């Protein structure tokens, strides 16, 4: 065992340097270990695409990917993401061109106020990769962690179908 090394591994409660890989870029932030990934992104890295809707893991507005899996960033500690690959809505467009899911959300009007939209899109793209978009009922079930209070739900399902089926000029399937 490495008990003799344990004191070095203890970080906090004061501020510590945390190294994060976000959207392919390496960031060093000096934060307290209690800072959530969501607050780290928004307040310490000026990446405000992930939204704070409840800070309790109930609304999904803060959905991002950690190692390609969708997580709620408000219930994830930033420090626990060291050595992992974090992807946010800011990393979805490639070379200035929108991801097909972003295009589909626009053309199907799958958004109104837009506040839940980044989380919806992060979930929607992951959902296709997970293979959970077989039917409207399946899409509805697996998108139910992302609340849209404007209730654009039917249009969100349509946008996901469009991308799944490669229709509506939204191009390649994601995943």
């Amino acid at each position, binding site marked *: 065992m490495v008990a003799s090394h344990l004191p070095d591994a203890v970080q906090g409660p004061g501020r510590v340097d945390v190294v994060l890989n976000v959207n392919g870029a390496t960031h060093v932030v000096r934060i307290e270990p209690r800072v959530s990934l969501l607050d780290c992104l928004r307040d310490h890295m000026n990446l405000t695409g992930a939204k704070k*809707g409840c800070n*309790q893991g*109930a609304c999904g507005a803060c959905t991002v990917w950690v190692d390609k899996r969708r997580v709620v960033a408000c219930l994830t500690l930033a420090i626990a993401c060291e050595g992992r690959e974090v992807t946010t809505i800011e990393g979805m467009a490639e070379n200035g061109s929108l991801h097909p899911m*972003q295009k589909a959300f626009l053309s199907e009007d799958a958004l109104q106020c837009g506040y839940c*939209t980044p989380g919806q899109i992060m979930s929607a793209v992951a959902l296709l990769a997970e293979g959970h978009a077989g039917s409207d009922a399946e899409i509805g*079930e697996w998108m139910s962690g992302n609340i849209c209070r404007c209730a654009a*739900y039917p249009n969100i399902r349509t946008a996901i179908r469009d991308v799944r089926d490669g229709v509506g000029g939204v191009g390649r399937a994601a995943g």
Partner: protein
Amino acid sequence: MSTAIGRPLDRVDGHAKVTGAGRYSAEVALPGLAHAVLVTSRVPSGRVELLDTYDAERAEGVLAVLHHLNLPKGGSVPPLLPSLFGAAASGQTFFPMQDEVIHYAGQHLALVVAETLDQAEHAARLVRVTYQETASVTTVEQGRDRAYEPERIFAGFMPGRTTRGDVAAALDRAQVTVENTYHCAANHHNPIECSATTAVWEGDRLTLYDGTQGPNATLHTVAELLNVMPSHIRVVTDYVGGSFGCKAMIWDHPALAALAARAVHRPVRLALSREQMFSSVGHREEQEQRLTLGADRDGRLTAIRHHKLSPTSHFDDWAEPSLSVASQMYACPNYEGVYSLIKANTMTPTFTRCPGEASGMFVMETAMDELAEKLDLDPLELRLRNYAETEPTTGHPWSSKGLRDCYRRGAELARWSERDPRPGAVRDGNWLLGWGMASSAYPVTPPGGPQRARARIFADGSAVVQSSFADFGTGSATAMTQVAADGLGLPLERVRVQYGDSDLPNTAAAVGSAGAGMVSAAVHIAATALRDQLIAQAVADERSPLHGADPRQVVVGDGRMALRDRPGTGETYAELLQRSFMADAEALGTWNPPGMDTPYGTMTFGAQFAQVAVDAELGLCRVRQLIGVFDPGRVLNRKTAHSQLMGGMLWGMSHALLEGTIMGPDGRWANTSLGEYLVPVNADAPDVLIETIETTDTVVNPLGVKGVGEVGMVGTAAAIANAIWHATGRRHHRLPITVEDLL
């Protein structure tokens, strides 16, 4: 000649929303930004005995702890006035942290300001409050015996009691009556973006980044609260993460953010938590309604008696106007409507999507269904027999009414004539199936003062149109781009609309489904004024091919002015401006709305149909389809308008089956999270079929826009409740209708 208006244009702010680039009011990056966190009351009534800030003030990073003993006093609380009037619009006539008295649980008691959000949140937990608690009243049941009849409600705009004819006599003579008591739970708006304000002082000038339905409402309210000149305040509202009424009036947090920023000499962000959203920005009040309908054997209504009882705050006589639209829906000679209130330990209730229309029409349309059942009449036929050809409360003609067409088309889409009228007649396995319908209507209310926009065209023929309104998801920025393009005669891609800033030409808050109508009026007038100004310049210019032409014979398309009957003769705006050495030209458009006393009934109407499936053993209710046909006047953008109507209908479904804030025995809201306050998730939302019937309306505003923001919700709950009766044979008079009710 309209080419852009009506088209299903994608949202102009959509790119910023799907990329996460749009900055909401808690996302503005500012150097030196400090964070404020509220400490709130845990008891509903009493006094603060001791507020101990010793530990909080000494916690790391803390800059200030503000409370009733040290908060700098400024101006005064303005009266409660709906923000549609364009003036100060305080959500309640109470400002916290002025003394030690506690009026409701969740009341703001202290504000902790620190370097980082984590430090502020931590220090807020270190503030120790001890209370001297007194007995409280927070529900209809607790306050029933101390109810009173207010002279006026709703900021004084509505009488507490309205009568016409002789209801008692008519009910005595009625051949059929239906009488029931109904109960609707309290509701909270719960937009996904919690309210937030970021405040920045530069000397004696204040900039507020505020999530609001009305930047000018924030400006005027904060000006009065802080006793700062309106000219020294600017409110910026680039993006708003939903409102549904909780950002329609102005609460204390924008002013508190400004006071905190002044105290610490730094920019301050104050963002409410989800839990604080339940006791900081108003709610739809719990309410009991009692409705008696009297009719003859043919189903013609002879009497309506409609009473409402609801709690309000200690400060204001507020009830959402649940009796209004229900009294305007059907022709009926005898009417009595009475509001009763209870002074309770809650905030002042406020506008919540369909404020009053949804609750009142749930009651009216459920009762109409029961009347149809009693008379063995088709529910749709009963509504047609009571169709109001004129506005029932005044006798005025309608400015437009397409309701008959809505009923006809909705019935077609729902295949209503094929419905077996007997309840419980159709099954799909274990599911009992039912169809129900209801009428919808929502008033078209003019704003309280002139609405303005400015149109500016540049020498290259591109234009910017400016107006102060906020787009909080309605699609107004997109629709106004279309209105501006048509007014100017420019292609869409050459027009940009700038909005969400109180420094731009004045508009009232976009509330009460009035935003599209009033802002489109100002934008249309500004755009066409600039167009006419340039045409006048061209026909007066010897060097113009249009010189000497009758301006009325000049038309504009694609940025080119030409003679109506000789399209080859003309020139572009760009040619005219460049030749005249003009870098730009601009015009201000002002729309003076018709007064409240315009002799017309003005409403958007609709017909709504719902299909539900109720599990015979488990009591689960699934809404399988919603259908709505509406007559919103002119539709500015078919795509965004349908989204608004769809959202409204799903709000109605939520009102019917899910939403209710529960008051705990301790006088605090008990389910203050999105885990416990139920709102629909994707799997709850059925497909929604929407059609609009475009009626011409020359009364309401220049483009004849009646509005779509709320009417979609009005009839949904009753259509669902009536469908549940059709599926199960049981009536429900309480919202939400839960599994327990259906078992």
